[in-house]
């Protein structure tokens, strides 16, 4: 256990997870924003897969799923930065930039595209979803391969090691 205690916390790290691994994590009972992965606390992930569905509510959100071949992950990209009170504590100027960026992400997230998504894991109506922080549309098919290898390698070395 001492050895485990010395390991750095993964709570603020964007873990690279395959779909089926991500779907296996469970929230800690009293802390819904923190999840349990093999006994480790995690909250952020990076996933990569093909956009297989999208539900766009302009000015509110884009809900989409990405499928990496091992599982589908539901993601939500908020588009209401300038109207929601949730962001009231943020700088208006920064929000303006983020809002514009999010809209451009929403435009880019077309069906069939390969997207790399970073975000926080959450539970919505009992289902796991990722609240998107940023999106990168990958055009190099080798990026998918590398991501899978990264997921496997990190799982062996770090997440389950």
């Amino acid at each position, binding site marked *: 256990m001492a050895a485990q205690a010395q390991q750095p916390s993964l709570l603020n790290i964007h873990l690279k997870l395959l779909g089926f691994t991500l779907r296996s994590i469970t929230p800690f009972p009293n802390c819904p924003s923190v999840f349990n992965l093999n006994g480790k606390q995690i909250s952020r992930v990076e996933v990569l897969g093909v956009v297989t569905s999208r539900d766009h509510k302009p000015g509110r959100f884009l809900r989409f799923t990405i499928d990496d071949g091992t599982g589908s992950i539901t993601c939500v990209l908020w588009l209401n930065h300038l109207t929601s009170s949730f962001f009231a504590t943020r*700088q208006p*100027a*920064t929000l*303006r930039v983020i809002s514009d960026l999010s809209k451009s992400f929403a435009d880019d997230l077309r069906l069939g595209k390969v997207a790399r998504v970073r975000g926080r894991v959450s539970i919505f109506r009992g289902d796991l979803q990722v609240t998107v922080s*940023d999106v990168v549309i990958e055009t190099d098919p080798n990026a998918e*391969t590398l991501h899978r290898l990264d997921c496997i390698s990190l799982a062996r070395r770090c997440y389950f090691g």
Partner: protein
Amino acid sequence: MQDVKILTVSDLLHYGHSHTGSSSPGPPIISDQTPQPPPGPSTSNPNRDIEPLPQLDYPAILVGTLRLPTLTLKCTLWKCLEFSDDSVAVCCDIVGFDPRAIGKKINVLTWNFIISDHLSSGFLEIVKWDLSDSSHGLSLCSSLIIDSFPIVSNLIECVPKTSNAKSYRIHGIIEAVSPVSLVPCSVEESSSNKSMNLRGFQVRIMTCECKLCRYEESVRVLFEATDSHSFTAPVFVYFCGPAWCWHPVLTKLIGNVVTISGLKKKLILMEKQEPFLMLVTADNTILHLPRLLKKRKIVCGSYQGTVKNVYMQGMVVELDEEVWLLLTNQSLLPSHGLRIGAVISIRNAHFVVPQFSWAKFIVLGACDNTSIIVKSFSPLKTRCLIVSQSQSQLENFIEVLGFSTRLWVLLLVSCFQKTFSGILSRKELLGSRHNEGLVQMFARSHLHTSVFRARHGVLMEFIKHESCCTATEPYPGNLKLISPSSGRLQLVDMTDSIDVVIPDLPSFWDHNSIFEVIDYFLIVEGMHESDLPELSSDDSSLPRSIFQGFPSARKSNLKIFVYFHLRNATCRNRPIYPPIASEDELSDTKSGKFHLIYITRKVRPTCHSMKLERSVFAEAIVMPWYLFLAGKDGSTHQDKFLIDCTVGNHADHSSSKRQKIDCASTLSGTCFKDNFCRCGDQSCLRTSFSHEIPCSATIQGVNNFIFTSSGTLYRIKANAKIKVCKGRAKKFFLAFASECDLKYQLLQIGGVYLMKHHKEGPLCNIKNVSLKVVTVPVTPGTYLRRLSFSSEDLTTDKSLHNSSLCNEVITKDQVLAVASGSSISDIHLHVSSSLTGLFESDIKELRNGQNASDANLGSFSLSLGMKTRMNANLEQNSGLLGHSRIFPARKFTSLRGDIIAVHSFDQGSSDMCSSRADYGDHSQYGFCDRTKNFCIHVSVANQTVKIFGFVNQYMFPTGFGPGINATFHQILDLRPRVPSTLMLTSESSIVINSIRAVDETHISDGNLKRFRCRVVAVYVLVLEKSNRKCDDLNSNMQSRPLSVDIPLACFILDDGSCSWCCWANAERAATLLRLEEYQLSGCEASGYKRRRVGVQNTARASTMHRLERILEKHDRITVKSCRSVFDPFDQDFSVTAGSGRALIGLDDDFDLVASVIFNACINRFWTVVTEVMDSNAVNLLKEHLVDMQMPMPCMENLWAREVLSVNHVTEAREMMQNNL
């Protein structure tokens, strides 16, 4: 209107400058096809500076006669038309040629006149002209259109002479014209046979065999019936004897229909071929031409292009569109008008696409069927081509090769010339008329015999052109080039070269030797570059790069070199490198009297003075010691391995050791007495010498020849009666001639060297010892050997008996000695232990005599590693060295320590900025523009010292980098003005003492870490206005200096397993911020772009440029994160301008800064090489952050040393291989 002046050729020659002239000066009208000046495909193209020909500023014409070539002009081509007036004749060429002008007076309305030293006068390029009297002298066979030109007589006559012999007529298209050649023959005269050379050339004419042509219709009928002819039958006409001078006319008529009458048939016998029927010109041969010449046929193998450059004395002509014309047979050269910028037309050339693995381009091969004419003269002030008269073996060798192989050999010549520049003479490289040179030997050894073609002479090959045309080029894919010299010690083979570190390289190393190296370390430093080659390396431009001497070396992030001991290498000398006369070397080395000198510093001239003075200098002190070697009384032996040219473990030295001891005890004293003191009084010796110490010497000779000699070391008293030398200075400068650069490079500061005593030698016969500056020239024959001492017995001498490297793989840190003290030398003295102490104290005394007090290094306790001395006496030497005045009253220091890090820096570095102000203009330190800014972190006595320098990276010796132990000599001490700072100058030199090598497939040497990661957030960012402007916005972004300074930035990086606080500055920070990318997605998404419409698609719209504009306003911008650093889009910022004013959300500038940061957080993976920061550095950063009222993030702090983009394929492949 100004009067038109009539100039004579003499006037042009008297004017003495190349120029262009016209009857109507104004905007120069060069010709109807004015060629563009050669475009500069690369910045390294030296042609870009070629000026246009200056124009005469008054209207003028030339009046003179156009004549066929004669042998009277001093012209090496023997085929130039001549232009003459009453004053003088010159070679000329003409565009818009009309045969009617031959022999006529013409008015030259526009011309270029090129002065050439190699031509007796000059070369006239006639651009526009007309006949002085168009009604005079026209020869018409019909009243309509046909002109007739008697070939033999220049007199124009209407009716040809009649002859009894049967004459023949042909009507056809001129297809090809051979070069003019000489055929030895004998001519029967009335009384005797006379030998002479028959000058002539052949013309291939495609004739028609229709009825009209077979029956003797009039010439006019033949020309009129244009549609009835079918020119399919080749006929060869030999223009010989006086008809040879029609060569330029026939060349210009290629592709035209002509009739030639009055020809004779001759049966020609060539070699062992079947007899061949050929038409030959005779006295009454006439050339018939229609007045209006019409090109009927486009000759096969034609190409027209602009000459971009001419290399290798005209053997290689670079044309536009990456076409390379090979003119190795210089008899094919057109007139002297083949100049850079001219448009030339090439007919009957071979189009070859070489299959070289290293370059792609088209070669136009010229053979005896090829004709080249200048279609448009060059408007540029470029030189005429001059053909060399001598035919060397190399040229003959090249002529028998296929075209692509020819180009390879020519490139090889260029490579060899650069590689062996200053080492081998031109004759040794290229050979002579009778001897093969190194290039030819090298090429021959790499070419299969099948590539050599038998040659049959011009006459035969012109007729048998089919074989020439269809000859398939052997596949030359295996032919490679050698790299041009890097100025470093390298191992070179046929494929490439590699830097080497050879610790035991003797001072008199024979650089011609070929070595086989089996035991070696291959040391690699740096990161793997991506699979993608550098875009800048354009394969098609490789030949240009080589010919122009600008090797387009591919940049590599890896520094690779080989480390080995010469004693473990096998010498594989071939007969082409005859061994240096080792006997002479031995006799020079093993006996005689030697001075001991101590090298205090090495001085290189500045860039400015280098042009004037090639010499380099080393300062030396003459020690009060002499070495006498008994020579013949000692023993010499050669290792058993040397018999088969192998140097390896040495034989038992026991026998030589015994001899040595005997000699030392009996002979040395007598010898010395005989040589120095003729009075025979032993007391004289005793009073003159304080010490007389017998010793034995192990001497390394040329080609690893090792022998021993007995001797005696004498230490002379200051007040000695004996004067060994007539005049001797205590301190002097060794002046190395340019050909002794190697000796200079191998010279080590702090080393003791032997110089041979010669009574009349420059060291021993100094006329005026009171001179402040005494120079002793070092020539190739100067004896200069490094000396080392030990008190050990010979058999345990480690300096010559180190164990081999044994092909071992380094499994842990291993220190490779490079120049560690006494272990490496040319001559090793075995003395009693008492002497070594005495000797060292002498050296110390000498140092102290010259040096100021020991270093006072302020807060650092570096006294162990450093010595400082004032530069007082340098001022006095400024007359000699020319540039010492640039270091007025500053302190020079030597420092030895472990290199922790080396990096180039720029203005983004805050410490650099502050320091630079103190340095002033770096040009004052004697550096040229090619220098780069470097910072070297050196660990000395557990403290870190920074050494800055604006230096050329070639100043760093091979292997220089983190992990080595090095001594820095002559570095400038800027303290206390600039705390803890030292500086490299042009006088500095670096000696590597040892290299620490680690077996590291993946970098983690304790200090360095490599991650593939993404930016999560930016914690701190400081942007400053740059003082450095880059005017050329179109230049390569990678090579441009940053136009925005980033003294400090802190990024939060995350690789999926951990996150770090990564500190970066300058280029590293700019890369992580993606500032060099034109598209700023964050910026586009924000309102910023919308308010700056119209500039986003240009280079000026780059993020960097926008930041530049903001910084123009604010000078400095500080961005601090004031929210989360773990989510890219959960960041808020406080942005402060240089004035202290906070930028708020209403500012456009705030939007841009925020966009830059968000943009950095999306999109890219980076491979970041980082260095773990020590506690001092972390504390320093903490202080910075405290000033900014920010806490230090609670994560590991790293300093970015390198930021590289990620290649997905490479990374994935590596992961597959290593982890799965």
